[in-house]
């Protein structure tokens, strides 16, 4: 029995051995989902970009392995860039557990692989910085899919175009629109990721110190969405600064819920909490319709 124990311990210790030189850990992956699916991966271990193509997006590890000669481990991806609609690729990678939930997602209009090869894609650090300074809300793989699956079937994905970073609304059928800078800032203000939030009004820069913003929903046939709460800034909030913040929050509601029926602010859960039974039982399409017909208001206390 003792020999068996020694053999077992040795087997347990050795079964985890792997040659680290034969394993690549990409940090940025670009996917062009049009047939044939193109992949480009950046790793910190190699100087060049690894490029490959396959019939489906899920064949990515094998395709990149054949191109590089090394085993591909995607658990350390920090950014996934997809050209066109990112929903399908993201969903299949998430279900296959190929990417970490905290991986940033970027949608580009076309040729994500070419942009990665040219070095024209924004860094994952840029996306993180934009979320931390309140320019964009936090849109990692898990939050993108959470809104797609659990909200009204429309999600927001960070998008890079000629003007820089913004947010685009995507459903499984295609792009619904792009959000303005104010709407992005409004969503960031309502999110939890921001570490600092500065804005200008009347030539003065205000820095957010604390906020107690809350969403409330009332009504039955026509929903009324209200954002209320107190915001403290340095220097103290003036009327002009308050209306600037209200503009951002109103833009966030108008451009997501009102224009497209997108639920990025847990509106459905807020409605269920308020006892609105339609929100509990309706389909995603019906919920979208209810949000589009909703009224909304913003009231900020200083």
């Amino acid at each position, binding site marked *: 029995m003792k020999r068996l124990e020694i053999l077992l311990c040795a087997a347990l210790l050795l079964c985890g051995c792997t040659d680290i030189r034969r394993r690549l850990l990409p940090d940025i992956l670009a996917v062009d989902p049009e047939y044939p699916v193109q992949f480009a991966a950046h790793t910190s271990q190699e100087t060049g970009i690894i490029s490959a193509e396959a019939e489906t997006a899920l064949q990515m590890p094998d395709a990149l392995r054949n191109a590089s000669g090394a085993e591909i481990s995607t658990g350390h991806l920090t950014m996934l860039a997809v050209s066109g609609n990112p929903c399908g690729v993201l969903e299949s990678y998430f279900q296959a557990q190929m990417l970490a*939930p905290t991986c940033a997602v970027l949608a580009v209009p076309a040729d994500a692989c070419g942009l990665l090869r040219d070095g024209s894609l924004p860094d994952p650090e840029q996306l993180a910085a934009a979320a931390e300074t309140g320019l964009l809300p936090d849109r990692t793989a898990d939050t993108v899919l959470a809104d797609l699956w659990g909200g009204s079937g429309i999600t927001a994905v960070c998008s890079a175009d000629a003007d820089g970073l913004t947010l685009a609304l995507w459903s499984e059928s295609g792009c619904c629109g792009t959000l303005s800078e104010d709407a992005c800032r409004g969503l960031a203000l309502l999110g939890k990721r921001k570490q600092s939030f500065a804005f200008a009004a009347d030539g003065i820069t205000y820095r957010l110190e604390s906020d107690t913003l809350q969403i409330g929903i009332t009504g039955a046939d026509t929903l009324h969405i209200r954002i209320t709460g107190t915001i403290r800034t340095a220097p103290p909030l003036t009327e002009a600064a308050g209306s600037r913040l209200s503009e951002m929050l109103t833009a966030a509601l108008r451009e997501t819920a009102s224009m497209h029926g997108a639920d990025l602010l847990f509106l459905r859960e807020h409605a*269920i909490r308020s006892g609105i039974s339609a*929100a509990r039982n309706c389909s995603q399409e019906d919920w979208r319709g209810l949000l589009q017909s909703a009224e909304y208001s913003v009231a900020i206390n200083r």
Partner: protein
Amino acid sequence: MQTQGQWSAVQGAAVMILLRLFPFFCCGTAFSAAEAKQMMLTAALHAALILPLLHFRHRLHIPAMLLRGFRLCAAFEGAYLTLRLRQLCLQLRLQHTKALLLMLLVMLLCTVSLHDRAAARTAMLLLCLAAFGFLLLPVSGIGTAQRILLHTPDSAPHFAQEWADACELPLIPLILQKQTESAAKRSAYAWAAFRILFLPAVVLFGTMQNGRLRRFQGNPFFLLLARTPLSDAVRTDGFWMLLAFGCGALCITFCLQTAKPHLHTQRRMLAAAFLPYLFFLALLLLLPQAAAVTGLLHLLFGILIPWGIILYSLLFDRRESA
């Protein structure tokens, strides 16, 4: 007074808790507030049916015929937990599931032949590690928890799954027999508190993180861990994976130790435990629908038979005294 060979209160509680914790690690349905509520109600029902057994513990003498049934049930439990371990490997997309299961079988040959106090001591150690991990969980996840997600709609029934996951139920009457009266009482109350309060609280915390990711087909507990890293560089899933496999190995070992009759030679004892275990394992692998009877077995061996023995003993004693 605890004597040599008897289990302490902590050891008994640790084994009971780990037998429930391991199926929780392997769960495949998304966390929701409705699940936490049903989990709490089922646990309260189990506690209401199990805790009064303590009062009649001295009457719970399992006859040899039924003891054989309990041993078979323990072997089935071991096979069912092995199936759950395999399911966990598949959920986590581990590459060498077959090799791991083969090694588990070799390991079981070693561990099952040990005295059952070895399993109890290991359970204490694993429970301490799990407690440490659960202490870290809110530290890493409190910033991202959204209380509003507790209102995420979920209409899926979880009651039957709760019965199937309560793997400790048929083993509790046997664990209580290994302890002194006071130790048994404390173990049972600790187990009840864990099931009624702690586990639903973890599910609620998971809902506050994963609420909208209900369509995720993998393991919700490991999704929660992946979404709540301690820092940008430190994730705790490796620790939990080791802990989950440790719990699984320990629970299967304990089931097989319970399935092992007292015979003269070690080989015969091992054969008596392993043959039904391997039969049930093959049955569950070939016919996964057979796992549906697990909840019924838990009800039968955990509640109906122990209460039947006690009621019979009470009635028989009354007749004798009359």
